[in-house]
């Protein structure tokens, strides 16, 4: 029935124990008639039927002492205390004696016996069949062959304070006892007899629970460790049963006669005799001993870890991390558990990866080790062609194993499902790179698995665990524009969104709406990029958006007035784009551009000149291409309005060129005027032979620029056709304003054949007359000045040469008759009383009457002297004066060319002083 068994492995190394001193097989117990064995705290303890106790330490050194007079029957070494409890007999007959040995305390070379108690149930001595001691040293239970269980409560190491009571009375031999502490306080005692299994709750008035109406034979009872929840384990013929204090637990159907059960670190060790299944008679070992089978079961992972025959196993001791099997030929065998790695190797060889994984988990193998198993398992399944299974394993390696290792294996088109699954898991674990995202999306698209793609893209609300841009690109490339779009929108990749919307989906309306929702900077840059396309497709909306963008932009999905501005704390900044940057968008759509620019100018009169220039150009263009007269006039008016708009910030030169190019007369003239280019206006009119306008222009702007008249003159003069009247008018203007010397006029007119003498006759005659008069006047004046000069000369001569008689009788100051002392001056002559003179005269030298007059003249002379050196002033005057010659003459009169400077003060002083 091997089929109905667990998998069998060999995870233990069997080795006969050797004496390290001699390197021979350890046989020091070969003559010992063993009665009981126990182990703990690094040593094996054997008792014999002679009452001796043998201690074997780690170095296989044997020590012994005599503990009982007759024999030892039971031994128990506690795990947490260095205490050995033994039951044996010191006296003949049935007289079991419990001894507790403190192995740390030595008395006369032997361990100290701290307690000595007779074990008698009631009053009838009975042989002890089972006993156990609780590790807390407070409970000790002893079972007897007559079915009674005696419980000793109180300190186990001493007899004092220890009370005993009968907790169970059965009718068959007690075969096993075990304590179990459950929860914090509940203490149970399992009692197994030959025909029943009972749990006794020692903390609840010894309440008994019958677990089973069958029991077990001696030896076939053990307690599992914490890994199996400290259950009572009982081996019976048909199976191994587990018990909790309240009932039966699972069972393992290991058939066969069981001799002993032991528990070792999660392993259940069964010593059995396979009688039923063996076809031949029981195999006999050396010395005719019966062969037993020692089987080690891993309960958790469900396999047989070791199984081998041994001759008549006396006991199995679990100590120092290995199993010691004490066989009938008095030999010790040590079973050493293999290390995890070699166990795994064995499992790998058998391709039993599932077991390897669970084993590794139960052995607390580190993560790297597990990953290694998963990888190997995956490789194995892959090589077997189980790709689905393989990928499941590979998924478990995510995070440790290089993803490309797996991906490369599954790149085959037929494995794309597996690859997809792996990549999905990769993304789930947040370890995916851009390439992985690309690959996964490619897989989805190859598989045409739109729902998965949807799921991947749409439902990931948590942190972005893939590279969004890559995803967008892949989706685009494979034609899943909607997905790419959704992604872009969700992750606010505006450029991508618009690119897809415009280039792939061609839903310009939506694209435009999207831009409208963006914040200012993004909206601006995106509109710059896609404006042209959008303008082509949806001009109206695009223009509207541009208008918004260039005035006071706010995203459409934001409230018009945000909270900040409501609070008044932070006035929101008005964001607007420069209109000129968007002009190029309107290529081929001048009407929208006009609309846009008009809007801009309206809301923002201080727009840049580019805006105005462009608008002007548009106007002109429209105007020129307009066939209908009335609308054309209308347009002309509009254009002119723009030109005349004082806010219009256009570039005059450019505007002029535009007007000229488009031959917009009104505009050209207006611009000339604005630029003060009167000459240009004139020339314009001349070119267009508009005589009337030429005269008008001259009249209008003659004030600012007299040259206009001259130009007009030469223009009319050279005209072929008869234009006497104009010529006359121009001449009269020139004459009136004295713009040109007659000679020049004549010269100009003389150059051209058309101007006849009759035209200029009047002019010339008048001028000649005028000049004659002038000459006559000048001559008269010259004559007068000469006479005056002559008079002055004679007077000076007179004063120099002839005497002067002072005949005045009255003082010229007080008008009283002159009295001595008096002062006389040559000038008139003037005479004064001295006291009058002293009180009136500013100084002694001057005549008080003549002094102001003299001073005035002196000042004039001085001023002339000074001003003659200010050349700039002279030049200025010269330039401004209508008659330059007179200015020069004036300056000549002031003595510009005098070499000697006249020092008049000196003169008057000498002349006056001498009169005293």
């Amino acid at each position: 029935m091997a089929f109905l068994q667990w998998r069998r492995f060999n995870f233990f190394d069997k080795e006969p124990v050797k004496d390290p001193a001699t390197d021979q097989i350890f046989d020091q117990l070969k003559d010992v008639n063993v009665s009981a064995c126990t182990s703990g705290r690094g040593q094996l303890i054997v008792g014999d039927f002679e009452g001796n106790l043998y201690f074997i330490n780690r170095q296989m050194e044997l020590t012994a002492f005599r503990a009982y007079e007759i024999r030892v029957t039971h031994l128990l070494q506690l795990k947490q205390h260095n205490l050995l409890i033994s039951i044996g007999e010191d006296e003949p007959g049935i007289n079991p004696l419990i001894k507790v040995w403190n192995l740390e305390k030595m008395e006369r070379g032997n361990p100290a016996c701290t307690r000595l108690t007779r074990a008698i149930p009631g009053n009838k001595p009975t042989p002890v069949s089972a006993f156990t001691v609780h590790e807390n040293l407070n409970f000790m239970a002893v079972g007897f062959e007559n079915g009674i269980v005696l419980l000793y409560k109180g300190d186990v190491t001493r007899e004092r304070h220890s009370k005993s009571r009968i907790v169970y009375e059965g009718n068959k031999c007690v075969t096993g006892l075990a304590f179990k502490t459950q929860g914090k306080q509940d203490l149970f005692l399992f009692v197994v007899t030959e025909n029943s299994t009972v749990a006794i709750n020692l903390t609840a008035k010894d309440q008994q629970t019958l677990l089973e109406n069958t029991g077990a034979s001696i030896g076939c009872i053990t307690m599992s460790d914490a890994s199996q929840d400290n259950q009572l384990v009982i081996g019976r013929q048909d199976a191994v049963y587990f018990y909790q204090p309240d009932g039966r637990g699972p069972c393992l159907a290991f058939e066969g006669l069981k001799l002993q059960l032991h528990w070792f670190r999660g392993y259940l060790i069964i010593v059995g005799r396979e009688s039923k299944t063996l076809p031949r008679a029981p195999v006999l070992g050396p010395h005719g001993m019966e062969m037993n089978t020692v089987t080690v079961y891993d309960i958790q992972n469900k396999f047989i870890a070791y199984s081998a025959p041994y001759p008549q196993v006396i006991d199995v001791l679990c100590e120092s991390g290995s199993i010691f099997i004490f066989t009938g030929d008095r030999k010790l065998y040590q079973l050493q558990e293999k290390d995890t790695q070699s166990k795994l190797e064995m499992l790998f060889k058998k391709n039993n990866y599932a077991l390897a994984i669970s084993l590794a988990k139960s052995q607390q193998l580190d993560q790297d080790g597990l990953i290694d198993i998963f990888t190997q398992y995956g490789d194995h399944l892959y090589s077997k062609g189980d790709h689905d299974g393989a990928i499941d394993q590979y998924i478990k390696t995510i995070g440790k194993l290089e993803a490309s290792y797996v991906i490369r294996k599954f790149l085959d088109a037929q494995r794309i499902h597996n690859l997809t699954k792996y990549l999905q898991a990769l993304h789930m674990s947040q370890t995916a790179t851009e390439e992985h995202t690309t690959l996964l999306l490619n897989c989805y698209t190859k598989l045409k698995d739109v729902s998965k793609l949807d799921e991947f893209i749409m439902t990931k609300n948590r942190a972005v665990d893939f590279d969004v841009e890559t995803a967008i690109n892949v989706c685009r490339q494979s034609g899943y524009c909607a997905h790419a779009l959704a992604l872009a929108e969700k992750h606010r990749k505006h450029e991508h969104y618009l690119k897809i919307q415009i280039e792939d989906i061609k839903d310009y309306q939506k694209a435009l709406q999207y831009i409208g929702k963006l914040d200012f900077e993004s909206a601006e840059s995106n509109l710059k990029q896609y404006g042209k396309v959008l303008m082509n497709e949806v001009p109206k909306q695009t223009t509207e958006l541009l208008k918004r963008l260039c005035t006071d932009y706010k995203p459409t999905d934001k409230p018009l007035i945000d909270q900040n501005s409501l609070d008044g704390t932070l006035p929101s900044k008005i964001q607007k784009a420069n209109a000129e940057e968007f002009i190029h968008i309107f290529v081929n759509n001048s009407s929208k551009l006009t609309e846009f620019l008009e809007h801009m100018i309206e809301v923002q009169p201080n727009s840049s000149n580019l805006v105005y220039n462009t608008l002007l150009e548009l106007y002109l263009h429209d105007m020129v291409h307009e066939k209908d007269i009335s609308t054309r006039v209308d347009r002309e008016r509009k254009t002119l309005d723009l030109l005349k708009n004082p806010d219009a910030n256009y570039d005059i030169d450019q505007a002029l060129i535009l007007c000229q190019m488009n031959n917009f007369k009104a505009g050209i003239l207006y611009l000339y005027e604005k630029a003060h280019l009167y000459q240009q206006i004139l020339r314009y009119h001349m070119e267009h032979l508009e005589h009337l306008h030429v005269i008008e222009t001259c009249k209008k702007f003659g004030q600012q620029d007299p040259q206009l008249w001259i130009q007009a003159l030469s223009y009319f003069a050279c005209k072929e056709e008869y234009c006497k009247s104009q010529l006359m008018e121009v001449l009269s203007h020139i004459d009136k304003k004295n713009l040109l010397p007659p000679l020049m006029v004549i010269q100009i007119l003389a150059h051209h054949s058309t101007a006849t003498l009759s035209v200029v006759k009047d002019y010339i005659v008048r001028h000649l007359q005028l000049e004659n008069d002038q000459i006559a006047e000048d001559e008269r004046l010259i004559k007068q000045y000469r006479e005056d000069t002559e008079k002055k000369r004679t007077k000076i001569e007179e004063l120099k040469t002839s005497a002067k008689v002072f005949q005045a009788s009255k003082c010229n100051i007080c008008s009283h008759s002159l009295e001595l002392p008096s002062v006389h001056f040559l000038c008139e002559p003037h005479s004064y009383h001295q006291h009058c003179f002293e009180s009136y005269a500013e100084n002694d030298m001057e005549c008080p009457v003549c002094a102001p007059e003299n001073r005035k003249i002196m000042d004039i002379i001085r001023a002339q002297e000074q001003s003659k050196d200010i050349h700039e002033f002279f030049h200025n005057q010269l330039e401004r004066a209508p008659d330059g010659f007179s200015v020069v003459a004036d300056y000549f009169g002031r003595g510009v060319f005098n070499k000697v400077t006249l020092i008049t003060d000196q003169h008057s002083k000498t002349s006056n002083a001498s009169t005293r």
Partner: protein
Amino acid sequence: MSYAYLFKYIIIGDTGVGKSCLLLQFTDKRFQPVHDLTIGVEFGARMITIDGKQIKLQIWDTAGQESFRSITRSYYRGAAGALLVYDITRRDTFNHLTTWLEDARQHSNSNMVIMLIGNKSDLEARREVKKEEGEAFAREHGLIFMETSAKTAANVEEAFINTAKEIYQKIQDGVFDINNEANGIKIGPQHSPASQSLNVGGSGGNQGGNCC
């Protein structure tokens, strides 16, 4: 773990019908494609909530092999519910249902709620037993019927919970004597209020888990 009731279940049926997988799916929410033969009787537990009450399900997963029949039989006793499982892709497992039912009726108490389960419903392509046949068998023998898939977990939860509801209803109707533990029902321990808030609806342990 505090609970109002403890129900003992047993899962029976031919070998290889997916009894252990059903249990694993119910307790651990996972599926193991390769599962060793169950040797003996295994054990699983999980808490569920019915009518606002915490109920602990203690589930005994038996070996389907004929040779273990004597061992598994001893586990019928004291089960409040049984899941009788067949494999929809193997007609013989369906044909053996009568034997199993007899066995169960004979060794358990008469009030035991038995649910008939057609497992491996994910393998529709290999189906040998029609759903209608299962329904008819259940009707005939007074069982509840359900098709499940331990692999996809379809209906697994429902199978266990519906059985529990049925048992619960029988308790409410006074059919079960809840004080007799042989019926496979146990009233929860008188737990302190402090521990009551903990461990609500947690999944149970593995084989040999906490058993109270």
